[in-house]
């Protein structure tokens, strides 16, 4: 018994002395950053964090991947309710409205100002800044990974039908798809119709054609916004897609069926797809040997005055309830990310585009867009800056938009399975989507979007 006691006392004394001995010099302030990217992209984020930690001695960011965007938001909410939230969190584009009403953040512009960083907000591409800014133009979060949708086309296949340029209008696309089919291509164009494709099929299409998705300027002017995609040019678009699908010109490709559309394009199975510029690297790495392909801006209907496309991706939010030291670190981290050199690192290693003009210029001056694997990505910038953002093309600010996207997938599947007509399906999308919006509005009574 005494031996045990003595041993215990010695252990305790040892523990005490180590505890006293450690903090002789200042430890760097550690703070958490949660993000929603995985695989290759997560490794790039880890490198980015390491670069930040190596660049100075005062702060240390601990970067943790939560797997995907949905899980990041869910876990952050759970952590926030338990008072254990990270300091910085990456929230995807459509979570913006939810974040703005959460009351759980520290405005990014205020944070930077308080900590003595001068950020030139006019340096951001307006299409990107306006998506994340309040209606008054204040930046509540920092744009991080940004992309937009592009059309990928197979040059070899188009050469067979005597074309050397990508189609610019949907009328041209229709003719080309027909020609490709006649030339023996089994899958002229691939699409998918799950919730994820709401982005390129509905949101980007509507922005390019300056068509609203919802009233109240896509929700920027109030929580009482309601969907109206069942009476815009989008109806015509879905009707055409369905017609081309029935004629065998458009095929549905998804992972559940065996091959997603990016794989279908990279292997040369399908000749035309619409997807994010973020897939540019993937196609380049996985393409069939010797296949010639390029990217172009998404087509528009003939006679349309083309507007800017929408930014996709995520922004960085700083959450409330942390210490001043944490906020100093967060500000330093955001400043680091804002640096053009970081933009070059980030875009080189991912398919994402730079978010500031200075970042873009820095990359151009470095010859980034002249080299083979990255050539073509500048089309994304051209698409994003095709016009000044209008009241409608600055973005979408709707509550629970994730659920509306899910509803989009549901109704598109019903339409393509011939269960309902195009108009019936889109009417149902609007009806069910409005119920989601109404519920969101009821959850936040008396609150308004900043």
């Amino acid at each position: 018994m005494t031996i045990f006691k003595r041993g215990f006392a010695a252990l305790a004394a040892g523990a005490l002395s180590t505890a006293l001995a450690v903090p002789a010099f200042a430890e760097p302030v550690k703070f958490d950053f949660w993000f929603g990217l995985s695989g290759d992209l997560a490794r790039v984020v880890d490198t980015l964090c390491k670069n930040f930690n190596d660049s100075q001695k005062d702060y240390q960011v601990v970067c943790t991947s939560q797997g995907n965007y949905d899980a990041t938001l869910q876990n952050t909410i759970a952590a926030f309710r338990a008072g254990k939230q990270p300091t910085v969190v990456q929230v995807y584009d459509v979570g913006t409205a939810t974040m703005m009403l959460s009351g759980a953040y520290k405005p990014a512009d205020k944070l930077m100002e308080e900590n003595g960083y001068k950020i030139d907000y006019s340096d951001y591409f307006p299409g990107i800044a306006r998506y994340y800014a309040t209606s008054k133009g204040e930046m509540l979060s920092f744009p991080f990974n940004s992309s937009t949708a592009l059309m990928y086309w197979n040059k070899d296949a188009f050469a067979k039908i005597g074309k050397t340029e990508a189609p610019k209008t949907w009328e041209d696309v229709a003719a080309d798809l027909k020609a490709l089919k006649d030339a023996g291509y089994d899958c002229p164009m691939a699409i998918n119709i799950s919730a994820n494709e709401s982005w390129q099929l509905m949101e980007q299409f509507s922005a390019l054609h300056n068509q609203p998705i919802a009233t109240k300027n896509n929700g920027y002017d109030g929580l009482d916004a309601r969907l109206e995609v069942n009476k815009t040019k989008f109806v015509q678009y879905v009707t055409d897609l369905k017609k081309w699908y029935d004629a065998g010109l458009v095929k549905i490709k998804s992972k559940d069926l065996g091959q997603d559309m990016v794989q279908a394009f990279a292997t040369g199975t399908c000749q035309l797809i619409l997807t994010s510029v973020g897939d540019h690297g993937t196609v380049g790495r996985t393409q069939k040997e010797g296949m010639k392909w390029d990217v172009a801006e998404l087509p528009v209907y003939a006679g349309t005055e083309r507007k800017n496309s929408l930014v996709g991706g995520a922004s960085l939010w700083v959450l409330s309830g942390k210490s001043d030291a944490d906020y100093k670190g967060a500000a330093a981290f955001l400043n680091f990310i804002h640096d053009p050199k970081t933009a070059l690192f980030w875009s080189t290693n991912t398919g994402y585009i730079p978010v500031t003009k200075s970042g873009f210029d820095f990359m151009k001056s470095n010859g980034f867009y002249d080299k083979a694997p990255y050539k073509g990505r500048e089309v994304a910038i051209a698409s994003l800056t095709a016009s000044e953002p209008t009241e409608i093309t600055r973005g979408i600010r709707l509550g629970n938009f994730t659920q509306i996207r899910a509803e989009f997938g549901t109704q598109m599947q019903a339409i393509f399975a011939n269960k309902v007509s195009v108009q019936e399906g889109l009417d149902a999308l609007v009806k069910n989507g409005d119920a989601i919006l109404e519920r969101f509005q009821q959850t936040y009574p008396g609150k308004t979007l900043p």
Partner: protein
Amino acid sequence: MEKRVTFSKWTIGILFAVPQLILIFTFFYWPAGQAVYWSLTLQQPWGGGNIWVGLDNFRSILSNASYWDSITASMIFAGISTGLAMTIALVLAALTDRQLAGSWLYRVVLIWPYGIAAPALALAFRFILAPEAGFMAVVNQVWPGSWDPGLDGTDAMASIIIAFSWKYVGYNFIFFLAAFQAIPRSLIEAAAMDGSGVIRRFWDIQFPLITPTIFFLLVINITESFQDSFGIVDIMTAGGPANATNLMVYKIYSDGFKGLDYSGAAAQSIILMLLIIALTIVQFRFIERRVHYR
């Protein structure tokens, strides 16, 4: 003089029960109570506040046509997958019990599926049943367009039923085999000497004697098919196409966690709980009468 341990004071009994009660309270009654409270309010996801709305959440769910579709889909799924999993397991167990050549091997192998996690087996079945790349691609080559779970709701429902039944065949098999082996050999041998064949012996002796096991598995299978289907649906169909496989438990997840509608999801989970309780009561009330306990 009866020798029995008795407690003079009931407080001692309570004290012994306390650890268990605390566990049940913390992990069952408290969360369930929380769910009931949430279902009667509108919760802001970030915890900024809530509003008492009474039964509004239930009203809006029950007046939603897509929720009734979800209930129907869950019922169809529960009925068919329970039937399949139990029938196949029963046949396999009966055959294994007959000590056919190699039955020891079947005994081991047939238990494995239950040991595989739902998402893993769903991934495997997603590949097997993929219309363009997997095993079913062969079928599609013979009859083009006959199998398309990406757009055809019936095909998608069939996929998740197959995957779920496959898993539960293993579970049911263990219980059926144990039940068969608990039947005294002498009964079966006596019947055999009286000249009854295999099928006759099965229906007249074995089947009636294992009805308690059948009843137990029926209750468990139906309950599990409402709850344990989540991993399979999530990986294989994500509720699609066009909500054809949006089972109740998956809808709770997607509305609650993806849609951040905590109150609506809480209300749905209350409804699901009541439904399972009701189904179980019905089974005990009407089916258990036909069960013979020894």
